[in-house]
């Protein structure tokens, strides 16, 4: 799937889909959407990027290992439930604050941080599965984590060709 068309479109598409996934995540609070579906959209964005540029490009782009992202999400979700211990209400009760940002009242809730946690869990888990599946056999088995990541010389390094000219 290493066509010029895909390689040209993929960065734009990925950026748009990531943006849309955040939109779906935030919209999900009161309307259809939410962390799970948003996370799936983000994971498919990363998968498209991986198809176009290879798995190690995605791993470099997201900086953290997908499983670490999933772990952070799980921790955020658990902590969102725990905040209610300080408010004297049972576990997982939704708590709200209404700070004014630039004159606009922005409701912020533990419900939302829980949903962001779900988003991160889904992004992390699905991305790590997708990357493991996209991984070519010539690439190091980073998904299992047996060895530290060794850069493999890839014949197709897209988009940086012009530099070598100068």
């Amino acid at each position, binding site marked *: 799937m290493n066509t010029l068309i895909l390689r040209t479109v993929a960065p734009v598409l990925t950026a748009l889909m990531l943006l849309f996934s955040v939109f779906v995540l935030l919209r999900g609070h009161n309307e259809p959407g939410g962390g799970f579906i948003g996370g799936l959209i983000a994971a498919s964005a990363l998968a498209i990027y991986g198809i176009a540029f290879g798995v190690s490009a995605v791993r470099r782009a997201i900086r953290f290992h997908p*499983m670490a992202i999933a*772990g952070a999400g799980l921790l955020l979700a*658990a902590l969102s439930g725990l905040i209610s211990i300080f408010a004297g209400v*049972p576990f997982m009760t939704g708590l*709200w604050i209404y700070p004014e940002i630039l004159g606009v009242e922005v409701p912020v809730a533990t419900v939302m941080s829980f949903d962001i946690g779900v988003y991160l869990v889904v992004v992390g888990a699905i991305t790590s599965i997708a990357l493991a599946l996209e991984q070519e056999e010539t690439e190091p088995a980073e998904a299992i984590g047996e060895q530290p990541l060794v850069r493999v010389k890839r014949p197709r390094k897209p988009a940086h060709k012009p530099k070598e000219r100068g």
Partner: protein
Amino acid sequence: MAAPSTDLSAALVLAAPAIADWLVVLPVVLMIGVGALLMMVRKSVRLHGTIAISGLVLLVLLDAALLMRVSIQGPVTMVMGRWLPPFGIAFTADLFGSLMALVSAVVALAAGVFALRDIDAAGRRYGFFPFLMLLMAGVSGAFLTGDIFNLYVWFEVLLISSFGLLILGSEPEQIDGALKYAVLNLIGTTLFLIAVGYLYAIFGTLNMADIAGKASGFRETAPLVTLTALFILAFAMKAAAFPVNFWLPASYHTPRIVVSALFGGLLTKVGIYALIRVTVMLFPVEREELSFVVAISAALTMVIGALGALAQNDLRRLVGYVVIVGIGNMLAGVAIGTPAAVSGSILYALHSVVTMTALYLMAGEAARLGGAWTLSALGGLYRRAPGFSAASLALFLAAAGLPPLSGLWPKLVLLKASLDIGAWWLAAAILLSAFIVTMALARVFLLAYWRPRSEPVLEMVPELVTAIDWRIAWPLGCLTALSIFFGLFPETVLDLSQRAAAGLAEPSAYIGSVFPGGAAP
């Protein structure tokens, strides 16, 4: 935002929960949180052990505090998101649940310490400790939840973690064992889910306290015996009761020994826990109808398991069959169903969690010292490690149910309960299986420990250790000491298990804890 003018007390819990009530959810939250943390630092393998062990120590303390509170004040409930039960998901800890939670936390701590030695860097990077934490989240959740669908969810959580643990190492025989384990457990889980759906169709509620209160009203109109039979089949599959137990001998000998220890100690007992919870507390009348079938299954599980243990050459497989014998004993208590018998089952479950985990760890250590898993190749352990051999002998006696160890008391309680209702053949099966297990374990001691070491064909190079590592000595020693202690001083646990069984037979305190103002309409 304008304050809503509606009456919130109709939908929400308005009273602030006491800080101590948080003990009901904290074990699960702690395990999920620590598991998540370990996933985040998955590259820094050195930190894993420290974080995981401190998490498990905290879990033991939390569960101990919970048990103390429950034993003094009765069942504790917290509903998620302050929605009133039966609509909010309730976490309810009664004596039975918190006892099981505490003993499983202790065992997980022991296994975690053992794993510091047993699981190498590759296994840790693969995620042993995160999986262990999430497994414990599932196990604690299953013991503490008061909602039957939530119970299903925790079953899934522990099942998925157990898949991960089972294939740690990715050897072909592990994949083979994991496949059998996965398929049969998924069938069991699906049956459980179908039963939950059926139950919801009948009752319109999933809260266990609510179901227990309403069951008598549905006896005339709804097919509750069918429903209970479905639950019994699903949980019997989880608990490895005959005739749906063939997945256990096929898979439990394949993973790392510490994983086998966790599984043998915890997972089957979660099945037994769910079985007791559903049959004894929710559907006692229906359990009575089905008691004969359960009793036959219990007797066959015991005797066939014991014969299996006698026939094995591989230490791990042998211990697997000993686990099955224990399941048969616990099932016998469920079949008899009187509070005394159920207290015997609970006592047996507590004993079995500790002893079976210790037995697996012991088998691992024996194989490490002797260089083989098979009885035909092992030998001379007594001469090489007398202290370890003494601990092994104590565990063998405990598993066989001989005095003065912890295995004696539950068997005694169960025997008396079965003779009280005139089920002499069930009592005979308990005695017969105990006798055969004694022979099987005596055979292990004779061949692997007493027999002078010949020059066998070794399966692996035995490690030449002079002193036993503390990471092995402490878990094994403490679990053995626990078993000996409760063999010599059984009053506390006997009393606790009797009270737990009484709380299941007469769940008014449990219901009252979920519905303080009387049962839901």
